[in-house]
């Protein structure tokens, strides 16, 4: 495969991991963004429904949505950080491909950290990732 021909002193195992991590990260990003919107809509609908059915006070409904909203914002921020890490990793892979150097292990470490934080943040709002969970 083309990525296995990368120069720049990168070990094949690191290149393999970078390639796999980018692919996995794009999948998590995709599933995360899609699911976040669905989870947000469902949460709001459920709380409004409970309030209108008299099962939840107005204050409790608003408080529960505010608590959810805080976690939602964290998850969105994590998805944006993952997007940045994907872009950086792709750029570093491209630089390595063009024999321009680049710190692929550092980019991979950053991507791995961003991926873990995104998965955790998505879990915290109730999003499950196909292939991860």
């Amino acid at each position, binding site marked *: 495969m083309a990525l296995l021909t990368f120069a720049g002193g990168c070990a094949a195992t690191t290149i393999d991991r970078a390639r796999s991590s980018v692919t996995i990260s794009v999948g998590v990003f995709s599933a995360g963004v899609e699911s976040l919107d669905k989870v947000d809509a469902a949460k709001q609908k459920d709380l409004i429904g409970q309030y209108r059915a008299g099962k939840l006070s*107005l204050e409790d409904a608003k408080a529960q949505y505010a608590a959810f909203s805080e976690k939602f914002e964290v998850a*969105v921020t994590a998805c944006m950080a993952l997007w940045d890490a994907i872009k950086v990793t792709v750029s570093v892979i491209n630089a390595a491909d063009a024999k321009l150097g680049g710190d692929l292990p550092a980019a991979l470490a950053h991507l791995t950290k961003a991926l873990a934080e995104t998965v955790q943040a998505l879990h915290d709002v109730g999003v499950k990732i196909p292939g991860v969970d």
Partner: protein
Amino acid sequence: MGAEAILVAVVPALLKAVAAAIDEYNQSKSDHAAILARMDAALDAAKGAIANLQSAHAQRVAEMAALGK
């Protein structure tokens, strides 16, 4: 089309484009620059989808704030 509808309609297509570009990149030994340019464009568009996600959430926050009034 509302923000939610745009998000649902656009994001899967965008990310499929990114995934396809990565797959093509992994299998191709030539014209990487063009493939990466397409990948960059798809990723840029995906960031726009996040803005739509935030917009939809802001609308729901406003609706919750108005609840009971």
